[in-house]
């Protein structure tokens, strides 16, 4: 087990290294970083001053060590627009993103699990078709369009909910639904197939033969086991939700890290864009590592496999 954990950690470190090199190189290969940081009307002398200030006149190796060293100490550069460290901005905005993702996750699990189970129990019948329709719409409907439609119906026409911003619980409803669409479909599909797998297994057949009531079979024997892959996916999806909410957050002016990324684009605030992307990658790698280790802990077969 220790060996496995060490190996996984090493892989994760490798991924982090490649991630940092990728971002570092892309910035330098696609142009002069000084022009990203300077005002468009900056003169050559100003650019030169920025280059010296940031150490861009030194070798790439030195620059890379500087870049990673800074990132490890939590220093991601200074926001050009807000004039505060980009890291500080990120941590300020993260709670709003977490809140949105948590509510969206709750919605997607509530709908995804219940429809998924109903579809599996009534496979090939009415509920199954409903499930398929939800899955198809969820996977095909762009979240920002869903968000815009919700705004039109519930805010502009019916005046039930506020159009945008953050404050009361009512502000959360529409962005959370818009964000959850795709994930509801994904969770529903997995719940359905996982339930079908379990329902076909020997121990469920045995339980039925013993004369266990059908509801009890579904709840106790099938659902509990079918839940494991769904929970794993949900864990990884929660991290993804935080990081893909940029469009939804923009539509609803929700002050999370996605909105921060959008402001970064608007104001050409390059350090902010870079911070959001880099930390998003770090978050996903950490989540994958956690899931890998938890899985190996639960299921010893995985440890031997690789």
């Amino acid at each position, binding site marked *: 087990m220790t060996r496995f954990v060490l190996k996984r950690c090493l*892989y994760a470190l*490798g*991924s*982090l*290294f*490649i*991630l940092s090199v*990728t*971002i570092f190189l*892309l*910035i330098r290969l*696609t*142009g002069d970083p000084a022009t*990203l940081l300077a005002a468009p009307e900056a003169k050559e002398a100003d650019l030169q001053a920025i280059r010296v200030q940031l150490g861009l006149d030194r070798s790439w190796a030195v620059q890379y060590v500087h870049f990673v060293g800074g990132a490890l100490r939590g220093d991601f550069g200074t926001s050009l627009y807000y004039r505060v460290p980009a890291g500080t901005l990120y941590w300020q905005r993260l709670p709003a993103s977490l809140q949105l993702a948590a509510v969206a996750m709750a919605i997607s699990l509530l709908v995804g699990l219940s429809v998924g189970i109903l579809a599996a129990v009534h496979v090939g019948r009415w509920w199954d078709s409903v499930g398929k329709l939800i899955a*198809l*719409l969820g*996977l*095909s*409907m*762009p979240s*920002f*369009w869903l968000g*815009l*439609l919700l*705004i*039109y119906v519930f805010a*502009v*026409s019916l005046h039930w909910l506020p*159009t945008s911003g953050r404050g009361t619980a009512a502000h959360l409803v529409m962005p959370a639904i818009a964000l959850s669409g795709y994930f509801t479909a994904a969770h529903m599909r997995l719940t359905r197939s996982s339930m079908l797998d379990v329902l076909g297994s020997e121990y469920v057949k045995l339980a039925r033969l013993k004369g266990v009531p059908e509801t009890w079979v579904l709840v106790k024997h099938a659902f509990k086991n079918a839940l494991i892959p769904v929970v794993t996916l949900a864990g990884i999806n929660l991290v*993804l939700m935080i*990081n*893909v909410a*940029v*469009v939804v957050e*923009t*539509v609803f002016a929700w002050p999370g890290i*996605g909105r921060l*990324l*959008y402001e*970064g*684009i*608007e104001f*050409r605030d*390059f350090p902010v*864009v*870079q911070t*959001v*992307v880099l930390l*998003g*990658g770090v978050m*996903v*790698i950490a989540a*994958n590592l956690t899931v890998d280790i938890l899985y190996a802990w639960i299921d010893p077969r995985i440890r031997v496999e690789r």
Partner: protein
Amino acid sequence: MPGSIPASASSASPISYPWSAARRRLREGARELPVVPVTILGVTLLAALFADALAPHDPVLGNLRHRHRPPAWLAGGDVSHLLGTDHLGRDILSRLLFGARISLLVGFTAAVVAGALGTAVGIISGYCGRWVDQLIMRIVDAWIALPAISFAIFLAVLLGPSEMNIVIILAGIFWTRYARVIRGEVLSLKERDYVRLAVVANCSMWTIMRRHILPNVINTSIVLSTLIVGVVIVAEAALSFLGVGVPPPKPAWGLMLADGKEGMMAGYWWVTLFPGLAIMLVVLAANLLGDWLRVRLDPQLRQL
């Protein structure tokens, strides 16, 4: 001539078997071709090809006196603007038709480029093994970890907005999806007898990868491509919506959604409804077709 048939049959190399089997399955399936996705994609393709002839108005030039005209069937609408006009008086139907061109072009090109790159890398990674595999797979892991949309925005900010750059960016992001799946297939394929025999027969590594491995993974690539086209089209729309994709005033569907946002607050819903509907239908069709192809060509492929 009857004599020519065995000749041409024998000239076909034995590795065309997986191909011809797939073709046979496709031909049998053609009778039950999924009507809905094929119709949607066909209509969109026709719209894209003949936008110049079909569009009643110029997609970029508007008439400010005709701003926010509702669709023809509503009070105040007129037949010359079937789906209404936007805040600059541009005809929405015309913009939708020309927008189909951008969406399909960007979507298909990016998916094909990503597919070619990812398949090649996946084959090399899986077949070479050892440190080559380790290196490539670590790169793939790291790139997949980056949330696609924020990585795309990052690259778009670096490269600047244009259709060409979007294709490069999206292909640069989505090739990793192919590489991972294809590598997995190659790992099991290279243990097969015919590959081992080819090694014994002193075929070069290049020949084995091209003639014995590639034909066996191409179905998977095609299925993946169909499913990824949908993802890519949504990604392009999202980038355009955020202002880092197709530059305005071009009639990209994502840009139209961004344009419609302000007006929607004042009740001009049609500016928002139609482009989103177009995106959804095309993506829906791509997903349905991908699912159908998956069952036809590659029953083993369950995960994406």
